[in-house]
């Protein structure tokens, strides 16, 4: 079973994402900000990270940059999942090492198709 780390400061989003991911047979871990997510990753790297952009303590972009610089940090697939829907943000995320990008709001089909594209579902 693959593991997905859901990083979002919204409890509701984490709950919705967990529900969808569990129906797709993922083991789901949660983090409320980038710092918490890095702590998770230093213990065990997930297969996929579903990552919000704007969060307190450490943003999604700062987390992604730190993750990709860390040992084996290139391994997890990172799917941004954010309300930042402008072309500039999307391009910046890809340039920083994100594998896919989901514009909120999202539904099950969107998330499933993006996870299939990165080879995780």
């Amino acid at each position, binding site marked *: 079973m693959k593991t997905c780390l859901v990083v979002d400061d919204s409890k509701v989003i984490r709950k919705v994402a967990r529900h969808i991911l569990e129906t797709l047979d993922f083991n789901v871990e949660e983090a409320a900000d980038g710092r918490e997510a890095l702590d998770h990753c230093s213990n065990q790297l997930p297969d996929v990270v579903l990552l919000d952009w704007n969060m307190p303590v450490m943003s999604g972009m700062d987390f992604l940059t730190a993750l990709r610089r860390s040992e084996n940090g290139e391994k997890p697939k990172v799917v941004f999942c954010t309300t930042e*829907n402008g072309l500039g943000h999307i391009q910046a995320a890809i340039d920083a090492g994100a594998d896919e990008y989901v514009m909120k709001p999202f539904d099950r*089909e*969107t998330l499933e*198709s*993006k996870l299939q*594209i990165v080879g995780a579902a």
Partner: protein
Amino acid sequence: MSMHDESGGATQILAGLLQARTGQVISSGRYWRVETSLKPVLAEYCIPDIDTLVAALLGADNDDLVQSCVEAMLNNESYFFRDTAMFTMIRTQVMPVLQKARADSRRLRIWCAGCSTGQEAYSLAMQFADDRQKWAGWDIEIVGTDISNSVLERARSGRYNQFEIQRGLSVARMLRYFRQDGEDWEINSDIRAMVKFRTDNITRPSGNMGQFDLILCRNVLLYFAPETRHMAFSRLARSLGSDGYLMLGAAETVIGQTTSFNACREIRGVYTLQDATRTDRPVLDTNWPFAQES
């Protein structure tokens, strides 16, 4: 008695209208979908309920209302690269054979029958564009057809909202082949130019668009009654080149449906014309060196 029961007769009439005009069948277990799909039509024409709608349909001079109802009831669900395995198969198995077979004319014609809002046709166009160098100098024509004018208008526009653009389309292709315009995303003109859209009913024998090398008719025939499906298969058979390929949806088959097609022995889920002899066909090269999906 509930409102739903009172409207049961009206629902049946509306489902019958859809079948008569398009061949699509709505099973009684899915009658609930009729009322839901017609809500925008009721609002547009200020009609209070579907019983009143049926009464209006039975009146004179109602062609616009009939067309609106039929289009609203059609199942138009579509998304980019729906069934990724099939697109990979087209790229790595079907296209190498056709490229070899058409090496002299360097011309390929592909028909997406029941193309809805255009995602399948544009997905094929993007796949060819991904392999631009391999197809340099080729004339590739992709024709998308549908019975619904409103979905074809949307297909021609090449504009998709946030939900539509994300379904099945990688962010890499979205950035490469679309431009953001407000809340929507619009396909680039070079991809749009590869696809022609036109109105067509595949159950009508009159349609003649010439012969195609590959026909995709996916998740269309399953909505048809057996006799309508038979007519559609006849039309597809007439439209396919003698060494061309037909592809259906994952849940569809020709077995027990038509004698016009055979399951292709080399590629699962692909069909060939019954009377095409095996010696006419080039040998499949399953090791074609196309790049993996990007």
